[in-house]
């Protein structure tokens, strides 16, 4: 009885969570210019518009991809030495650095966005795409920082001891043991930052200063003029990317562990 009730509750939760997403995605099939549910005159023409023929969307999409790939790479490159120093030394100073790097992610993004808007206008980067890349890298630095730290804690101490006994230098140990063993966690961190950067818009709104737009910005800007089915195509594309990415993380990494599950139980 309790089990049945539990399954029912979980199913209900899944339905509610999926509901708005399913509705947006199905609206992508609409033949006309208006969003209807259920879709009228279903067609796949909107997909062609979004990915190939409408310059507004193709440009926004390429901007989104550039910002997401660039910022995720940058975030991982900054997170690695910070996480490594924290794991290696455990010093107060490295803990402070890690804490500092997590501040932007923890505070309301609208405030960070306003601050970055001022910051880049002083440095002259306002409205340039590299400023957008750096801004997102800093905003999502906390994610690879956390996953890499979890990965470093999982490095087998026995291997490190063995390497040290056999006279391996720090560089060799790093290359042959630490890096391979933490690779899945590094990749997970990269993907978390990538997907969130793809979907973020409020910080990008202040940093871009309407000089360029990403897909989410483009949608956000036209939010008040009403929706078009092409926007729903964007939603389909984004949710597809997210599911592929997180499935990959679950397949090749240990997703429950990354999310903080207990190791001893299966």
């Amino acid at each position, binding site marked *: 009885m309790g089990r049945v009730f539990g399954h029912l509750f979980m199913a209900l939760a899944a339905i509610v969570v999926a509901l708005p997403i399913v509705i947006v995605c199905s609206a992508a099939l609409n033949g006309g210019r208006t969003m209807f549910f259920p879709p009228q005159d279903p067609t796949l023409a909107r997909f062609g518009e979004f990915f190939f023929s409408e310059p507004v969307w193709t440009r926004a999409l390429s901007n989104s991809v550039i910002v997401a790939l660039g910022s995720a790479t940058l975030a991982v490159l900054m997170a690695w030495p910070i996480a490594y120093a924290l794991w290696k030394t455990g010093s107060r100073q490295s803990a402070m650095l890690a804490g500092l790097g997590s501040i932007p992610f923890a505070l309301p993004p609208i405030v960070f966005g306003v601050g970055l808007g001022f910051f880049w206008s002083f440095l002259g980067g306002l409205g340039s795409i590299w400023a957008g890349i750096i801004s997102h890298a800093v905003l999502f630095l906390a994610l690879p920082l956390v996953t890499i730290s979890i990965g470093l804690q999982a490095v087998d101490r026995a291997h490190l001891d063995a390497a*040290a006994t056999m006279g391996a230098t720090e560089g060799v140990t790093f290359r042959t043991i630490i890096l391979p063993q933490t690779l899945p966690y590094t990749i997970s961190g990269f993907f978390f930052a990538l997907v969130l950067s793809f979907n973020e818009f409020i910080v990008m709104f202040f940093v871009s200063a309407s000089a360029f737009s990403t897909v989410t910005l483009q949608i*956000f800007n036209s939010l008040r003029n009403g929706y078009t089915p092409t926007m729903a195509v964007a939603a389909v594309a984004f949710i597809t990317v997210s599911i592929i990415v997180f499935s990959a993380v679950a397949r090749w990494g240990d997703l429950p562990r990354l999310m903080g599950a207990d190791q001893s139980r299966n």
Partner: protein
Amino acid sequence: MTVAAQIGPMAEVPPALRWGAVVNLLLWAIALLLCLVPFGLVLLISFGHKVEGAGWDWAFSSENYLRFFVGANWPAETTSLYLGQLYWSMRYAVVAAVLAVVTALPFTYLMTRQSRRAQARWLVFLLATLSLSEVFIVMGWDIILSNNSGLPMLFAASGVTDWLKDTGWFDVLRDWGLANPRNVKFKTSEFATVLTLSYLVWPYAVILLYPALSRLDPSLAEAARTMGARPWTVARTVILPAVRLPLMGTTLLLFVFLLGAYVAITVFADPSQHTTAVSIYENVRGSTLNAPFGAAQSVVLLVAAGAFLVLGQRLSRKSQGGA
């Protein structure tokens, strides 16, 4: 101390050490510049002064804060417009965060009792919805709740509206602001706002509660069950006390996250019930253009968020110490 930790520093050669120091210094510079300076600028500019038609100027005046707390024309008159907006920020955030945590708790508990594979599948599903941009989520709920499509149309077509009118519930809904003379309506309403906000953070609630619940020893609940406790009693006396602190920590984090919510508020909330985040946006990039005042509002929001974050951190540290 492991052998590696003892040998490690000795095996290091000076050039590597110097390299490490350079990287370290560089990282500190980057972190300070990009993680702290933007917030510092917001603070500095919040004391600035608006120049009509020409942006703003550096200054050291408290006019923006005065305007926020007592209104621009103080002491002649006091307005609490901006305090009212902060109140709505907090109200939406509290209600939506509590709602999300209360519904996510049983879900997460049930999820952690499943196999590791099933858990991974749920996590993929939740992470995918969690990362989906606020604009898409709002779009989805907007289609569901708007008056010309979605639920109100469904209610009218299926006869639920007539049934509500017959039974007298319709008048109750009108009192709650959820109906116009002809049909139910959800836009604009506090109900729709809180529902969407709560939906936005629900996957976060599950992810944040997941570690604590997955570490919960199942034998405790089993022991209580064997001794004849009913499921509800087990939940109340065994599970809830064990996750009390993570529960509060999660609620606080969601609360802080929701303080900055923007799109959902502009779409679903009545203009008289808009929040500080909306006002910040209007002042910095929107129609009113008063960057120093927007910065001052950001500082107030930041102080509120920071206070709750520190509280949350203290709670979570306490919970880790107690475990």
